[in-house]
């Protein structure tokens, strides 16, 4: 394989991988404060992008993206208030089923609010045909936006969780719910906040990738599955590991094309996931005994 082709595979792997990583981080934010895996995470990505596309027709792009993230965050809060909070004695099984239901409802709503057609945000810089040459490979400038956004989100979130009061409160809930409650943290509202944050992050991701991947009402679920795969590969709850796992899976998928038909690309990713679940349920980077068996 010539070097420029290898570099090209690397770039497409890293692009796809960082998209997965952002979705996985969205999973982790909610998982950490609530112990819930929100199967509707992919829908936040779609909602964010769709809203931004609608808004972008009426206002500057940056404003549209910001507003879309805000609106999606509110939808996230609404999802928590309407569907998660009222669940009594929420077992993991029940919460999984509820979030799956939410995912289906959001998807169908998107279908009927928008339509079945494909939409895309305009490129943030340049156009469809612009490409940047890096190490002998060609990439779209939007890819750099995706990578930048991913890095920014990771950095922003770690600052948020380390240095801000709400961030610390959310971490406290993750570490020990009861103790957090005793310290006067309103745990219930922290859960709502985590849904908002995660929806907002998802929406941002949706906006950055929309020019490259395009957006359609039903692309949420496949994205969510990949994001979930990455979250587990990295070890549930560990966002830095999720980035590493995302890039790893992206690269794996990119290079798998050179060996297997593209039609089996998902199979490769999921076989890896099943193998990890089988042998290292705590993820590639997690401690062997940590999280291995969540309570049911």
């Amino acid at each position, binding site marked *: 394989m010539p070097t420029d082709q290898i570099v*090209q595979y690397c770039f497409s792997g890293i692009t*796809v991988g960082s998209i997965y990583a952002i979705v996985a981080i969205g999973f982790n934010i909610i998982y950490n404060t609530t112990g819930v895996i929100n199967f509707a995470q992919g829908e936040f990505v779609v909602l964010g992008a769709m809203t931004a596309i609608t808004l972008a027709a009426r206002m500057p792009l940056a404003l549209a993206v910001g507003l879309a993230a805000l609106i999606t965050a509110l939808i996230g809060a609404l999802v928590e208030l309407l569907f998660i909070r009222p669940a009594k004695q929420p077992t993991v099984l029940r919460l999984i089923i509820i979030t799956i239901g939410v995912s289906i409802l959001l998807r169908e709503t998107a279908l009927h609010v928008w339509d079945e057609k494909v939409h895309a945000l305009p490129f943030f810089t340049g156009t469809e045909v612009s490409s940047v040459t890096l190490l002998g490979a060609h990439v779209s400038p939007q890819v750099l936006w995706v990578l930048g956004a991913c890095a920014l989100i990771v950095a922003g979130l770690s600052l948020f969780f380390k240095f801000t009061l709400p961030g610390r409160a959310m971490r406290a809930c993750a570490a020990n719910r009861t103790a957090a409650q005793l310290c006067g943290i309103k745990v219930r509202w922290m859960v709502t906040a985590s849904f908002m944050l995660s929806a907002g992050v998802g929406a941002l991701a949706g906006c950055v990738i929309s020019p490259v991947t395009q957006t359609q009402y039903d692309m949420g679920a496949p994205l969510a599955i990949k994001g979930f795969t990455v979250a587990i590969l990295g070890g549930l709850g560990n966002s830095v590991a999720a980035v590493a796992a995302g890039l790893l899976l992206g690269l794996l998928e990119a290079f798998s094309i050179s060996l297997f038909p593209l039609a089996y690309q998902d199979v490769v990713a999921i076989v890896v996931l099943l193998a990890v679940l089988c042998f290292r349920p705590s993820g590639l980077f997690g401690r062997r005994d940590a999280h291995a068996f969540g309570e049911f």
Partner: protein
Amino acid sequence: MKCLQWFAIAALASVVGGAWAAEGAEPASGPIKVGCIFSVTGPASNLGAPEKKTAEMLVEKINAAGGVLGRKIQLIVKDSEGTPEKAISFAHQLIDEEGVLAIIGPSTSGESLAIKNICQENKTILLSCAAAEKITDPVAPYVFKVAPKDACAAQWIFQTMKELGIRRIGVLASNDGFGLAGKEQLEKYAPQDHIEIAGSEVYDKATTDLTGALNKIKGQNVQAVVNWSTVPAQALVAKNMKQLGFDVPLFQSHGFANIKYVQAGGAAANGTIFPAGRMLIADLLPEGHPQKRVLMEYKKEYEARYHEDTSTFGGHAYDALTILAEAIRKAGSAAPEKVRDAIENLQGVVGTAGVFNFSKTDHNGIGMAAFEMLTVKDGKFALYKRN
């Protein structure tokens, strides 16, 4: 327990007895029932949604003009979500319960093939909107299709390639009925046109990134890429190729015939070459062209009513309904066997896809003449001319 036994005996009797009483003869008055099975939602909604809209619009128009043979057409639309199991269920429902004269659709090949035998056995006319050749090959007397032959589209592409001196190509196809049917035809006709398919990849319709696959094909030193699909990935292919600096001509199938994809592809879509019906270039057609009037009318009405652009697929529903109405008129009756015979004898029916000429052995009725080679210039469709 006694009661149970009587039940069992009665039930057994009705089982051994077999079929229930035959349906009554076709009523000579009242509306003519036509069933539609479209994948209005689900993975093939880009086909089914415009088909449904078109069918509803056209039936309204026909009925407003007094219907066919003085009878109104009653349309019963079912959303199969692109799944054969629902298509089968709806086919039974439409035939047994509604007693429809004909079924228009399904939108996808898998569904059409799944209900082909059901329609044939029940002597209900099927006018499929899907691509696969297998729908009308081998010919089943009651089964027709209106979508143009993939084989013709493939031959048009290869002919253009030969003119350009292209010998070595890469093929991409979506993993759905449309894409696979096209890929099959490309592979079938490539050898006789002396074109080598150096690499081919099949991708999921929901794919969001094709740079990997294109990179692989790029590594095969091809002179052109053919993409065969109906899905948004058509714009993605164009974009990804430009991003990769992969500078060879991009050919697409007639599935590209939707201005949405050109818009989604933006500047990257410019220069794409593809075969298509004349719907997209209706305004460019000379005044005397047989399709000009039909196409302009359909376009105008559809766009006024639904505020969206027409697509080839909506056109399929238009053609199917037009053919059916024409056949009923010719037959002078809505009896299935007479209408069927009439369709087989239809000649020169002008539709959106072209001029249909059916025969006993050709239940598709449309050939090479259905297509023109088009290209994209400055975000608009234009006739392709070698320069």
